[in-house]
């Protein structure tokens, strides 16, 4: 069996911010396969968001490099769209105008034919439809709930037909119920669009439920602790019931344990236990 050609290749990647002695990321080697749903998790300070920003080209590495289809990443580009946690929509544009934003850029319209322009219009309506945004297409973002805003942001990113969709804790600001709905939506979109997704989250359950592979990063300095290929149905065939299935819970446990082991959490828990022990000894009843 030959492995699918890597879509993103990360080799020897390091990032040290000026004025800081400890690197934010150190010696990262990672391949992301074409059509893969990859989740990046880890304790805070592990550099998962930094890694995503490096792939997006929003930050420059201090060592090593990133290649997309064998071309080095040197800056942000339309083949790597990003969905941010704070939506970052354009408040002066309506939902439809936000989704179509990339159509006002030369990269996308420079040498587009009439039929391409027409199919883009069609695509924008199709995306609104899939996202359940039809009824609000003439609304402004500030008239929408957080979940709806994030749908607009995802539609805007997909409108550019990126090779890779980079998502930086996209559901971190949403309430639990909305997040559940967004999970189903993103899985369905992943199946329809067949894009490659790199997804940063601090929610381990979210990571194992959505992704086909989970990368655990360890902090100080940020490095890869381990890569877990999940023995679960492919993302496109997953179902909310799976969130309670033993095999998923087992993966959640495995990943959580690695995060605990690589962060200060275990140390903090031990300290709490010692405190509890002390207070029990002081009040003998």
């Amino acid at each position, binding site marked *: 069996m030959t492995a699918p050609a890597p879509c993103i290749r990360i080799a020897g990647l390091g990032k040290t911010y000026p004025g800081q002695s400890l690197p934010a990321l150190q010696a990262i080697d990672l391949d992301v396969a074409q059509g893969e749903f990859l989740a990046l998790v880890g304790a805070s300070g592990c550099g998962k968001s930094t890694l995503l920003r490096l792939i*997006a*080209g*929003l930050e420059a590495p201090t060592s090593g490099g990133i290649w997309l289809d064998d071309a080095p990443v040197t*800056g*942000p*580009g*339309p083949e*790597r*769209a*990003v969905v*941010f946690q*704070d939506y*970052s929509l*354009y*408040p*002066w544009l309506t939902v439809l105008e936000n989704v179509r*934003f*990339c159509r*006002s*850029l*030369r*990269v*996308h319209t420079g040498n587009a034919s009439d039929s391409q322009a027409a199919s883009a219009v069609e695509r924008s309506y199709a995306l609104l439809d899939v996202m359940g945004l039809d009824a609000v297409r003439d609304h*402004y*973002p*500030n*008239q929408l709930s957080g979940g709806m805003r994030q749908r607009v*942001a995802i539609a*805007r*990113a997909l409108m*550019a037909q990126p090779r890779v969709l*980079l998502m930086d804790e996209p559901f971190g600001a949403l309430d639990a119920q909305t997040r559940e709905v967004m999970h189903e939506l993103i899985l369905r979109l992943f199946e329809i669009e067949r894009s490659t997704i790199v997804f940063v989250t601090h929610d381990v359950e979210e990571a194992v439920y959505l992704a086909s592979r989970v990368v655990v990063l360890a902090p100080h300095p940020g490095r890869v602790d381990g890569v877990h290929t999940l023995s679960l149905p492919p993302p496109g065939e997953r179902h909310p019931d799976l969130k309670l299935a033993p095999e998923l819970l087992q993966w959640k446990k495995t990943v959580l344990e690695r995060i605990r082991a690589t962060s200060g959490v275990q140390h903090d828990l031990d300290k709490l236990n010692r405190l509890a022990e002390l207070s029990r000894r002081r009040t003998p009843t």
Partner: protein
Amino acid sequence: MTGVASFWSIRGHLGNSAYLALAAAGFTTFLAAWWMLAASGLVDPVFLPTPDGVVRRLAMWAREGDLLTDLKVSIGRVLGGFTLAAVMAVPLGIYIGSFRPVQAFFEPLMEFARYLPAVAFVPLVMLWVGIGESAKIALIWIGTYFQMVLMVSDNVRQVPMTQIEAAQTLGASRGEILSLVVFKSALPGIVDTLRITLGWAWTYLVVAELVAANSGLGYAILRAQRFLQTDKIFVGILLIGLLGLVMDQGLRLLHRRAFPWLHTR
């Protein structure tokens, strides 16, 4: 009971009609106090004319004098100086707010320049450009331009970085980010900046007209002082206040019309 509670709760709610009624009451109280003080005979009318005396003077000025000319001249000067300042300040402010080297080059200079007292430039301005129209426009420009540049650059810096980054990752060029994101995002703030600096433009107009002019509202005020026409001074001052208010409200209306997303919920 709940009505009173919400009236006086901190940052509470107030209906539109209640707001208007209170605003009208504020003006009425001010006018009544003025009128009572003036009518009581405690103050010499040379120092404090009555409100109706001021209104009569306004009518007379309009009928027999050159009120309309003075108004037109003053408004023209304000708009001239202000427009010139705005046209020059907005682009520079956008570049200062967007590019660090431009900021480093201009911002300290502008910070220094805005503390130069505009009024003290009057003799210099007269020396350089004489006492014609350009002198008034130059003074208004000196009084507003530097502040405007700094405030616009601040408006631009308020644009959230993720709005810019989202555009970058969709493939926008630098020029496209400036025109499609930065400018659009900062525009409501820029209009507010223009609204605030327009008020200052009026201040410097009056300074210019008091010092070196033979027409305009400021000049009329100065001449009225020579003839002890206190009521005419009052008319001039109130007219300038009123004109400022009208222009301010005009820009507010423009704000509502041009930026509907800020006013919908």
